[in-house]
């Protein structure tokens, strides 16, 4: 029995896409960890912007420009408040988590020297591995990996052993996209700070399920993509502590990020504009704010509790299928289930269930090191959101059973 205070049927009506059919079947959307769907409230915000006050921001004196600037800055304040960030200028709008990480990785080039060490967890998305490898190539720093165990949890003892005065940076996701593991980031941050290392936490997968208090966590950098939390694609945030953002050099040059420009010398604008060169994704930023409003109106406590119940139910039902194995069985995880059936390729299962209208992810989920760790080509990943239902879980289970019968 799944209990919730949420009116799921009413919530589903907010998401027009959930009414459509795929391959003649009602859509069952279980690829929320890749991108979440967009409620009408956010779609309306986007339409209102283009219909009512589309203008470039921060430089026009005309009314539309002023309205657009105000809305964009209000969105920044909503993000600030949501993540409990001390100053709104510590919120940098980016195109998403990947750009946020690259901004920091590029900025650290001048801070590192040969022999410095960077720690990265074994369960990172490629976007949180490759930028650091590139940083290591530029600086001669060494990338070290915090290992994980078979349950998909970081081996914290090893982490503490890896930390030393050589450690300059630690990178870890808050929640693993492939396994759903919620990592003990408070402990990771505290321990890193003891040796003087800075910490970047990739919150792309976490922000749709939990509401992190970034001041309490004392994290140096935190990254989020709006499209994972009911917002549009192409926009996200980088949170950085003021002291770090002041120290980091600008990432890209252009308009908007300057104070004064002559051909001899340019002085850079104050935060946050120093890192926001060019015309930003204005509409995206405003819609990101609307997405936070939407999710907060439902409530993160109720969302987390309901998603957890859905996941528990799905886990039980899936495990009853012969030969099915779940990867990622951490004690603390979000509503992500990565699985395989013995003797069946995940691609084949994904193909069959798609024919039944069920959207799941198959493959390595941009986390090849995890697949290598388990010695598998990939997994099928079902990820649940607060607008999914128990009936949809049943359809997934039926679909996987049907695929198994066809394929074995």
């Amino acid at each position, binding site marked *: 029995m799944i209990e919730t205070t949420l009116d799921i049927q009413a919530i589903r009506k907010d998401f027009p896409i959930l009414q459509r059919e795929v*391959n003649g079947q009602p859509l069952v959307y279980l690829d929320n960890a890749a991108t979440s769907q967009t409620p009408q409230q956010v779609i309306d915000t986007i339409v209102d912007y283009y219909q009512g006050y589309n203008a470039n921001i921060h430089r026009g004196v005309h009314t539309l420009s002023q309205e657009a600037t105000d809305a964009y800055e209000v969105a920044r304040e909503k993000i600030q408040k949501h993540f409990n960030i001390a100053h709104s200028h510590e919120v940098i709008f980016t195109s998403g988590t990947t750009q946020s990480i690259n901004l920091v990785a590029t900025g650290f080039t001048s801070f590192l020297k040969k022999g410095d060490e960077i720690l990265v967890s074994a369960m990172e998305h490629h976007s949180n591995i490759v930028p650091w490898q590139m940083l290591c190539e530029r600086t001669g720093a060494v990338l070290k990996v915090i290992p994980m165990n078979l349950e998909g949890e970081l081996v914290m003892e090893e982490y503490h052993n890896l930390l030393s005065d050589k450690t300059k940076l630690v990178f870890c996701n808050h929640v693993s996209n492939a396994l759903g593991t919620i990592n003990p980031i408070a402990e990771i941050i505290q321990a890193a700070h003891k040796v003087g290392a800075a910490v970047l936490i990739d919150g792309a997968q976490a922000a749709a399920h939990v509401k992190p208090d970034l001041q309490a966590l004392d994290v140096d950098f935190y990254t989020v993509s709006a499209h994972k939390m009911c917002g549009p694609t192409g926009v996200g945030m980088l949170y950085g502590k003021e002291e770090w953002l002041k120290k980091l050099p600008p990432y890209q040059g252009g308009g908007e990020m300057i104070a004064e420009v002559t051909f001899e010398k340019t002085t850079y604008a104050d935060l946050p504009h120093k890192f926001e060169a060019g015309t930003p994704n204005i509409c995206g930023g405003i819609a990101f704010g609307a997405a936070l409003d939407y999710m907060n109106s439902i409530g993160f406590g109720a969302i987390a509790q309901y998603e957890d119940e859905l996941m528990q139910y799905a886990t039980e039902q899936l495990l009853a299928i012969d030969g099915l194995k779940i990867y990622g069985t951490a004690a603390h995880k979000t509503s992500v289930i990565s699985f395989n059936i013995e003797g*069946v*390729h*995940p*691609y*084949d299962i994904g*193909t*069959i269930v798609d*024919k039944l209208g069920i959207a799941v992810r*198959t*493959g*390595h989920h941009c986390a090849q090191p995890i697949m290598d760790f388990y010695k598998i*080509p*990939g997994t099928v990943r079902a990820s649940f959101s607060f607008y999914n239902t128990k009936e949809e879980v049943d359809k997934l289970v039926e679909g996987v059973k049907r695929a198994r019968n*066809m*394929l074995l």
Partner: protein
Amino acid sequence: MTIKEIQEDIIDEFSMFDDWMQRYEYMIELGKSLPLIEEQYKTDDNLIKGCQSKVWVHAELDGDKLVFTADSDAIITKGIIAILVRAFSNQKPQDIIDADVDFIDEIGLKEHLSPTRANGLVSMIKQLKLYAVAYQTQLK
């Protein structure tokens, strides 16, 4: 039989199926039924990396005809490979170069040949054609 005739045969066979389930069950049977490549040819050199499923292709000349063998780690992909091998193998290189793959649309499997599908099949067809070009040059 010419490539065109074989493709028409395949279209005829698939026209007997009423729905996707039957088509897929048939492909899965094809995928299961035979080893399509000798183990010694399942090398990294012969591997086409799709993001999702792997495909191996080997080509060799038999007289003036080009013989393909291939395999995949995913069974539906392997079923489609069986269909492609049936259509293109044991043919003259020039005929392979000139042939098209529109019949895949007609048997309702177009989605598997989308470049964004990342299953290695699009690259596989390209590879079959490249082998044909290479062996055509050799035959001349």
